[in-house]
């Protein structure tokens, strides 16, 4: 499955949730399903600080693919983080770096990625792209 196929799957999932409360119920469910991040990974170097909620993001690079573990102290942020991890985790740095994250807009949660929202999500997406960029640059140098 490509990144875009995963995004489309999510868009479909949310399509039937017209009420805001149902959408958030779903996001909270997503948060509860997100695998627990080990406490020892919640180090300061993996923290992405928002004004209101904190996000932890732990990257792993295995067999040419980038994997992410993430968590947040706020459950809605954690649910959104979970969605992003679901879409982007397990792809090559090149694929992640060039990915266009359109699903957030399509499911009506664009406001959470606005710079003024200060929940750490926008910074998290930037950080994911930065990891991908660093790794793909390193790969190119090796080649």
């Amino acid at each position: 499955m490509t990144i875009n196929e995963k995004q489309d799957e999510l868009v479909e999932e949310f399509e039937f949730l017209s009420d805001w409360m149902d959408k958030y119920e779903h996001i909270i469910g997503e948060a509860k399903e997100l695998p627990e991040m080990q406490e020892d990974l919640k180090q300061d170097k993996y923290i992405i600080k928002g004004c209101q909620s904190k996000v932890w993001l732990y990257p792993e690079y295995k067999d040419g693919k980038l994997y992410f573990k993430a968590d947040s102290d706020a459950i809605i942020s954690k649910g959104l983080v979970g969605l992003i991890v679901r879409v982007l985790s397990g792809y090559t740095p090149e694929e992640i770096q060039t990915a266009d994250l359109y699903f957030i807009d399509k499911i009506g949660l664009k406001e959470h990625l606005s710079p003024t929202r200060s929940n750490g999500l926008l910074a998290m997406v930037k950080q994911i792209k930065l990891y991908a960029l660093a790794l793909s640059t390193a790969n190119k140098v090796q080649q």
Partner: protein
Amino acid sequence: MELKSEDVQEYLSYQGNPVREQFPSLNQMVYGKPLIYLDNAATTQKPWKVINAVQEYYTTINSNIHRGVHYLSQKATDAYELSRTTIATFINAKNSREVIFTKGTTEGINLVADCFSRYGITDKDSVIISSFEHHSNIVPWQMLCDKTGARLKVIPMNEDGELLMDDYKALLDDTVKIVAISYVSNTLGTINPIKEIIDLAHQIGSAVLVDAAQAVQHLAIDVKDLDCDFLVFSGHKMYGPTGIGILYGKEEWLEKLPPYQGGGDMIKTVSFVKTEYNELPFKFEAGTPHIEGAINLKVAIDFINEIGLEQIAAFEQGLMSYATTAVQEIPGVNIIGRAKAKTGSLSLSVTGAHPYDIGVLLDKMGIAVRTGHHCTQPIMDFYCIPGTVRASFALYNSTLDVDRFAEGLKRAVNMLV
């Protein structure tokens, strides 16, 4: 709709609140739900009177003040100075020379802190603030301390969010040059025993600045009775325009202090050798001010006066206790700040739920509250919480708003915990 005083009690009854009709921005749907606005400690909505007056200013007398001899400039200057007089009366200042227009509370505090830092404060001196000050009443004093080497001393508080007066007394010694303290806490709603705080500071010869940003819209203020040396507040939190505020200062203090900013209007004569500063209040009003804001702050104050602050205080007290009872009944809700005397803000946390999550869900139910640290991070450290959910009240709120808030909160808690 004009308010007549005999109708006020009826208007402000618990069965809804017709004052609300005077605030057009409250009459709207957000996300398909009627707006419930409970973020009044951040800013209040504006009544038609103020909105219309803004338009009237720009369509009739807009011009620069204190400079022109022409008709419009005279008109604008008269209106600007009339507003100053109205504000002087509103807080019972000795005269209008004691009333300085600022951008808001933050600028007022920065002005006093900056002028004090250039008024003989040394590394032998100290400044006292309290543990629940807004960042705007912490940082300017830290800057003063950085500049002068003076020490910043902080009055501690108890679990209820009340200042420990014995500790305050212990901090008062002859090194203290100024005590800067809020009248009402923006996060906890605590009303400080401000008169006692001022009296004690005066006994050791310290000046006192009162941050009245969260008080002036809820309680009648009499600066002569309080005997404070400085008092600051903002227009936008009292139904007036944004970007305008007031610094009250005792005339003898304002005479003594050096000017804040240099520029037009604050001078008498300028030459490259020597500049002579203007008299009060103009000495502290460099440059073209927010003329429209200053003029229309009077309109907001007239609006408050028509209802009367005593009536407003009584009504809001009723709302506060109604809201406190309502939210206390929701399992998991903890009220942050249980001072005996409270007004304006009701802060709470929910066991097992982050305030951000509650804020997001309430927003989607059409309920506007503030979540986070409310620019008072030391309070959050004290209670070891990431933030609070804060509902804050104004004269147009009603128990119906509180009911909707409590229902929304209950629903959010059920979803999150």
